[in-house]
Each structure stands twice: as structure tokens, then as C-alpha cells.
């Protein structure tokens, strides 16, 4: 049985910063829920509150029927947590690490092997190797195995793909999808916006607040502006030049293009940009309307000036 998660008005301050400001969330059972946001958005703090590692200043929350403050013992039994930092024992071998975590939860590798099989198979050839000698991607897979070993009903993964190469990231997400099919609620945070599209629903966080919660498709659909992809021979000054244009447009690099968000008629505005850029001395100017990606949406949301 996977567990649903509810958070009501949780706030948490550290001596120097306000890490979470009135955060409320509802996560359904068996959902693959993503938290997207830059460093310092409050993702780790929220996860630590959920795993009962720290107490919120105010607000309430529950995992399944367990209160996150009162029933922390029960929560620790049913939740699997993979901290953001690699937190296994580097001087123990892969197998020993897994065994240790299994024993912590009074279980064994054998007992729950079916659950971790998909993950563990990929690192099993190296089971005698010390965990410190594993590659980044493999470390994360081992950490995932360790978080899963006690058959949790909810797993919380704090930036599992940070510092991992692109292929390993893909593999890792594929594994998460598989875990979801085994009836586990998954909360995952990531600073990579492209990974948001892989979640059922995402919460975009910034500076301790949740900006939006929705499915990735819905977020894209709700995007009101239009995206113009612009490319010229002189990419270097392009960004600066575009910022000089009349409107306070949003301009940012996006792959091979510079993206510009506008609410005006695209055809007319494209022409305007072309003439403007020609004056500035750009050649081979390409301006085309592009489909908004989830990253465009996030950037737009994050840059939105705070209106009361």
C-alpha cells in the first residue's frame, strides 16, 4: 500500500534564512511527484521535515495516517529516504552497505530482493567493490537500493540525479518509473527542469515557496505567452542586444537558441526583432516560433515579478 502525503502551512526558519514559507501540498498515493527548483529553494528542508529529521516551526503534515511530528517512529519504518549527499559507507563494499541497511530495518536482502532487483542487478557485478570506488551513477543506484531495501511505502529522494551523467540520469528515471509500478509513492527533487516532464505532477519551488503545482502537460498548457527562438551568427552579444529592446521581455539562452517570451503577435514581432538585430550588425538571423517547453514555463514563473 502506497501512502498519500499532506502538508499544511509548513514554515521553517534557520537563523539566517527562511527556508520554507507556508508550504501546503497534497500528494496522492502512488504518485511520482517532483519538486523542481534551484538550490536553496527549500527542497531539502521540506524532505527533512517529512522524514522527521527536523521539526517545522509551524504547520502540520501527515504521511498516510501518521502525523509527521507525533508518529515519527512509525514514519521512519515506512519511509525510505535517500539524502542528497552520498551517505553510504565508502569503506564498506556494495554488498556490505546493502546488508547493513537491510539489518537496520530488521530485514534481509533476500526478503525484499524482488523489489530492488531492477536496481541492484545493475550494480551486482561490482558487489565486492568498495562503495567509495563506484562511479557517480552507480553510487546513486546503490543508495536507491539501500533506500528501498525495507520495502517502504513512500520513498523520498533528494536530488538523486545531481552530478550524474546524462545516460545514468535517464536510467535512474526509468528505475523510478518501475518502482512506481510496485505501488510506492515517490517524492523526488531535482534542479534539472527537463526531468520535471517525467513526473506525474510537479511542484515548482523558489525561495521557500511553492510557485505552482500541476502536471507537466497542464503547466505547459497554462503558459500564456509565446516563445520565439532566435539564432544569429553572433550569439555572444545577442542576449545583451535583445535585452535592449523596447519591452521588458524575458530573454534567456536555451540550447542553440535564445528564447524570448512575448504576448504580442508573433509574426509582427519577429519582423521587429529582425530589423532591430540587423541594425545591431547581426547576420543570418533566424527567428521562429517554438513550442513552449516545461523549462520555458518554469523560467517564466520564476521571473514573474511578485504582484500582490
Amino acid at each position, binding site marked *: 500500500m502506497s501512502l498519500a502525503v499532506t502538508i499544511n502551512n509548513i514554515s521553517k526558519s534557520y537563523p539566517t534564512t527562511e527556508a520554507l514559507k507556508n508550504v501546503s501540498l497534497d500528494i496522492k498515493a502512488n504518485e511520482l511527484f517532483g519538486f523542481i527548483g534551484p538550490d536553496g529553494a527549500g527542497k531539502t528542508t521540506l524532505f527533512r521535515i517529512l522524514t*522527521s*529529521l*527536523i521539526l517545522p516551526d509551524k504547520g502540520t503534515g501527515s504521511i498516510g495516517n501518521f502525523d509527521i511530528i507525533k508518529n515519527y517512529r512509525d514514519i521512519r519504518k515506512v*519511509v525510505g529516504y535517500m*539524502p542528497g549527499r552520498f*551517505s553510504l*559507507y565508502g569503506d*564498506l563494499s556494495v554488498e556490505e552497505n546493502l546488508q547493513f541497511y537491510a539489518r537496520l*530495518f530488521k530485514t534481509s536482502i533476500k526478503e525484499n530482493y524482488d523489489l530492488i532487483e531492477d536496481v541492484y542487478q545493475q550494480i551486482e557485478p561490482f558487489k565486492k567493490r568498495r562503495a567509495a570506488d563506484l562511479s557517480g551513477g552507480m553510487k546513486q543506484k546503490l543508495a536507491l537500493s539501500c533506500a528501498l531495501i525495507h520495502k517502504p511505502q513512500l520513498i523520498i529522494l533528494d536530488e538523486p540525479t545531481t552530478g550524474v551523467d546524462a545516460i545514468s540520469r535517464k536510467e535512474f528515471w526509468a528505475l523510478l518509473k518501475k518502482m512506481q509500478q510496485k505501488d510506492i509513492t515517490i517524492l523526488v527533487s531535482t534542479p534539472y527542469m527537463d526531468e520535471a516532464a517525467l513526473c506525474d505532477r510537479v511542484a515548482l519551488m523558489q525561495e521557500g515557496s511553492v510557485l505552482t503545482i500541476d502536471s507537466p502537460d497542464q503547466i505547459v498548457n497554462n503558459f500564456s505567452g509565446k516563445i520565439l527562438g532566435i539564432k544569429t551568427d553572433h550569439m555572444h552579444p545577442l542576449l545583451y542586444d535583445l535585452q535592449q529592446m523596447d519591452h521588458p521581455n524575458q530573454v534567456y539562452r536555451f540550447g542553440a537558441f535564445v528564447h524570448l517570451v512575448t504576448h504580442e503577435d508573433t509574426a509582427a514581432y519577429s519582423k521587429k526583432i529582425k530589423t532591430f538585430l540587423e541594425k545591431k550588425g547581426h547576420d543570418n538571423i533566424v527567428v521562429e516560433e517554438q513550442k513552449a517547453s516545461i523549462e520555458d514555463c518554469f523560467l517564466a514563473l520564476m521571473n514573474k515579478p511578485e504582484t500582490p
Partner: protein
Amino acid sequence: MWTFIKKEFFHIFRDYRSMIILFGIPVIQVLLFGFAITNDVNNAKVAVLDHSKDPVTREITQKILSSNYFQLQQYLKSDNEIKPAFRKGNIKEVIVFEPHFAQKLNTEGKAHIQLILDATNPNTASILNNYTNGIINTYTLEKMKKENKLPTELNIHTTMMYNPELKSAFMFVPGIMTVILMLVSAMMTSISITREKELGTMEALLVSPVKPQVIILGKVTPYVALSSVIFVIIVALSRFVFGMPIRGSLLLLFGESLLFLIMALSLGILISTVSKSQQQAMLLSMFVLMMPTILLSGFIFPIENMPLFLQYLSDLMPGKWFIIIIKNIMLKGNGIEYFWKDTIIIIVMTLFFLGVSIKKFNVRLEPSSKKK
């Protein structure tokens, strides 16, 4: 629980360098303190400035040099050479005989010998002074005897109880035992716990349903075992290398040491709860534990000679009581009836540290992260 212990042993044994340090340091320290750092003076280099050069001065010089406390470095020719001789540094004492020494002794019945000592090390200087005085006195007595001018005879019989040969090892070994046990137990536990904090593995341990008491116990047990092994090594060394007797019950000795070990370990846990990093834990145990234990426990400096304020402070040093206990068992061969008070003091300290550290060791991450 067993899992924790096994894991901790893996950590200890996989880290070869720490292992060597863990077992090597106690051995080296005991040997160093036993052999090198000693108050006994042997073969001190002396110079003789003999203005008289008669049979009497020669006889006295001979007497002094024939003891193995002194070794002749050179004969000086004039007073001017005394200072340069000391400056060179290897001479500890200069013996000066006044001119016409024997003649004066015969006619006036008295003559003067001047002893000049290098007191950069006051301890050595006063010991050398005593030795020389003793030798000269003996010589005078003998001379008087020969000439039948014997005054009333005062015989002093000195018996050195518990340490007839006045070996300084007897004094150092209990102290060094205390310091090493304290250091190994407290430092190693505090470091191993803070290491988990630093690595972030504490986070992973805490989210598991394992109780903090179990985590602590699992951390501590391997170090109890290790420290016990180290303790046996030290006792064996002091017994067979320095000939330190164990006059009391060996079982009692181990029992008391185990108690002291547990005290040190709980102190280690306490340190780990207040320190954020391994380095901090190490420095804390060095300065908070080791220095006071060395200086205030009566290990090197006698507590009775300290200012009253420091004497009270030394009462707070667990090491002080343990040293008393060890000396009682090993040197005096006393039973528990002679030091049950000291034992109780250590027990109370243990309970206190254990209580505080369990209270401080939180089930959450927060309290430790708040204290920056």
C-alpha cells in the same frame, strides 16, 4: 545491534593507518615515558676546577666520579673557563676546590668546595646537588672515623615503601595508562560518531527506526573491546619491560579499568554531541581531556603542591581518581576497601556523562545543526 558492531569493526580494520596509530601510539608512549622521560639522573657530565691539586681533592674527585651518576667531561684551569663551559651546554655541574685545600683542612679543620650547577632544569640540578653533597658527606665521615675524631653517631635508615629503587616508571605508568585510555576511548568514539555526521550517514541512520541508544551502544562497544586490548598491552609492557609489580588483584584492576573506560567513552559521546566535525571533536578531546588529565591528575605534578583552586579543579578530573586506584592496586596491593570512595566517584561521573550524552543525542538532526 550486532550489525552496528560488525560495521564499526569493518571501519576500524579497513583503515590501516588509524589501526597502526591506535595500537602503536600507546606502545610508543609507554616506552617513551618509561625510558626517556625520567627523573632519574645518570651519567651527568661534570667539570672539575681544582685550584689545589692535592691528595685530598683528588680523592674526593675520584669518589664523585666513581659513582655512576657523574661522568667527567673536562678539567678546568681557571675561573674564567666556568662560564664558557656551561654555555657549551653539556656540562651540568662544576666542582670547584679552593686553593690549599688539604692544607687548610689540616690546619683550620675546614675547607671549601663550591658546586656550580646548571639549573635550567631545576629538578636535575637539585638531584645532582644532593648526590654530590651525599658523596662528600660520606667522605668526611669516613675520614673522621679514620682519624678517630668520631662525634656522636646518628644513623638514618631509610626505607622506600612500594618503590624501593625509586623508579620513575612506577609513577609514570599509572598516569600514562590513564591518559592513553582516556584518549583512545574518548577521542575514537567522538571521532567515529562525528564522522557519521560529517559523511551524512547519520541522516540515513536516523531515518531508520533504530533507537539512538542502539546506535550509540553499537558505536561504543567496538571501542570498549579495542581499549581493553590496548589496556592489556600497556599492563603487559609495564609489567615485563619496566618490572612494574601488580601486587593487588588483577581482576580488580581490569574491573576498575573497564569502569574508567566506560566513563571515557561516555565522555566521548558527549563530545560528539556538541561538536560538528571530526576536527572539532579531536581538538575538543585533546584540550578538554588530554591536557587537564596530564596536568591536573597528579600524573606529573603532585596535586598537594598545587594552589588550592587547582586542587579543587583536579577533583573534577576523572583521571585523578583512576590514578589513585591504579597505584593502590598495582603498587600497594590494596583491595577495594581502600579505594571504594574513588570508585564511587568514577561511577557517579560515568552515570552523569552517560545521562547527559543520551539526553543530548537527539532523535532528530536539528539540535546539532542549530549550534553552529
